[in-house]
C-alpha cells in the first residue's frame, strides 16, 4: 500500500509538470541559434573593422540590419525545432505554458530592445552588447519558471557576461559572441544529450 502511495504521488507530480511547463524546447534550437549568432558577430566584426566596405556614415545601419537578421533567423529556427518536438510528443505547441513563456520573455526583451535604440540615439552604442546580454539573461531567468529549470542557469551566465561587456567595452563584441553564440551552443548540446536522446 505504501508503494502505491509513492507511485501515485510521483505520477501526480509528473503530470503537473507536464501540464504546466513548456517542454517543446529542443537543444537543436540552441545549437543552431548559437551558430547564427557567431556568424552575425563575425559579420559585425567585419563591419566595425571596415573590411565590409560599408560607407562611413552607414556603419550603424549595417549593424542594425545584421542584428535584425540574426534575431529573425534565430526566432525562425527556435520555432521550427520546437514545432518538431511538439509534433513528436503530440502536444500543442501554442498551449498555455507556451503563452506563459512567451510573455515572460517578451516584457524584458522589449524593454531591452527599446533601451538599445535609446542608447544608440544618445551615442552610447558601446553599451549595446552589454544591454542585450543583460536583458536577455533576465528574460531567461524569468521564463525559467515555466520551462526547463536549466534555462535559469543560462540566464545567469548571460547576465554575468553582460556586466563584463559593460565593464570592458573594448571586448563587447567578444562577450556578445560568447553569450549569444558559444553559451547557446553549449546549452543546446547539454539539453539535447539530457532530454532528446
Amino acid at each position, binding site marked *: 500500500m*505504501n508503494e502505491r502511495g509513492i507511485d*501515485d*504521488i510521483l505520477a501526480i507530480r509528473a*503530470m*503537473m509538470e*507536464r*501540464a504546466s511547463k513548456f517542454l517543446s524546447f529542443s537543444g537543436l534550437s540552441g545549437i543552431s541559434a548559437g551558430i547564427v549568432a557567431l556568424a552575425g558577430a563575425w559579420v559585425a566584426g567585419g563591419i566595425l573593422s571596415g573590411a565590409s566596405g560599408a560607407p562611413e556614415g552607414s556603419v550603424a545601419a549595417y549593424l542594425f540590419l545584421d542584428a535584425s537578421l540574426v534575431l529573425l533567423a534565430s526566432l525562425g529556427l527556435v520555432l521550427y525545432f520546437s514545432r518538431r518536438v511538439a509534433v513528436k510528443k*503530440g*502536444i500543442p505547441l501554442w*498551449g498555455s505554458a507556451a503563452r506563459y513563456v512567451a510573455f515572460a520573455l517578451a516584457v524584458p526583451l522589449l524593454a531591452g530592445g527599446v533601451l538599445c535604440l535609446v542608447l544608440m540615439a544618445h551615442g552610447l552604442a558601446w553599451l549595446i552588447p552589454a544591454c542585450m546580454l543583460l536583458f536577455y539573461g533576465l528574460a531567461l531567468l524569468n521564463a525559467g519558471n515555466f520551462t526547463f529549470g536549466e534555462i535559469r542557469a543560462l540566464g545567469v551566465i548571460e547576465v554575468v557576461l553582460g556586466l563584463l561587456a559593460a565593464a570592458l567595452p573594448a571586448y563587447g563584441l567578444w562577450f556578445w559572441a560568447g553569450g549569444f553564440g558559444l553559451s547557446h551552443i553549449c546549452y543546446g548540446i547539454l539539453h539535447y544529450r539530457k532530454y532528446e536522446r
Partner: protein
Amino acid sequence: MKSAVTQLNRVFESRIRLGIMSVLAVREAADFTTLKGVLEVTDGNLASHLAVLEKNRYVRMRKEFVQRKPQTTYQLTDAGRKAFAAHIDALERLIRPGR
C-alpha cells in the same frame, strides 16, 4: 482515528483520473486535445474517465466556440479541488505515518 487508507478517494484510484485531476489542478482549464496529449490516452478512454469525474461533480465541462469551431474545455470544480487536496493529504499520511 480513521486510518489513512480509508480516507483515500476511490474515484482517484484510476491512474488516468488521477492524471486528469493533476493536470487541471495546475491550470485554469484544459481542452480535450491537451488532456489527451499530456496523459497519452485514447479518445474513448479519456472520455469515459472524464465522464466519471463529471458525474462526481469534480470536473466541469464547458463548450464554447473559438473562431467558430466548437471547443470543449474542462476545469476543476471547488469540490473537485477540495477532494483532490484531501486525497493527496491521505497519500502523504500513508507514506509518512505518525503525522
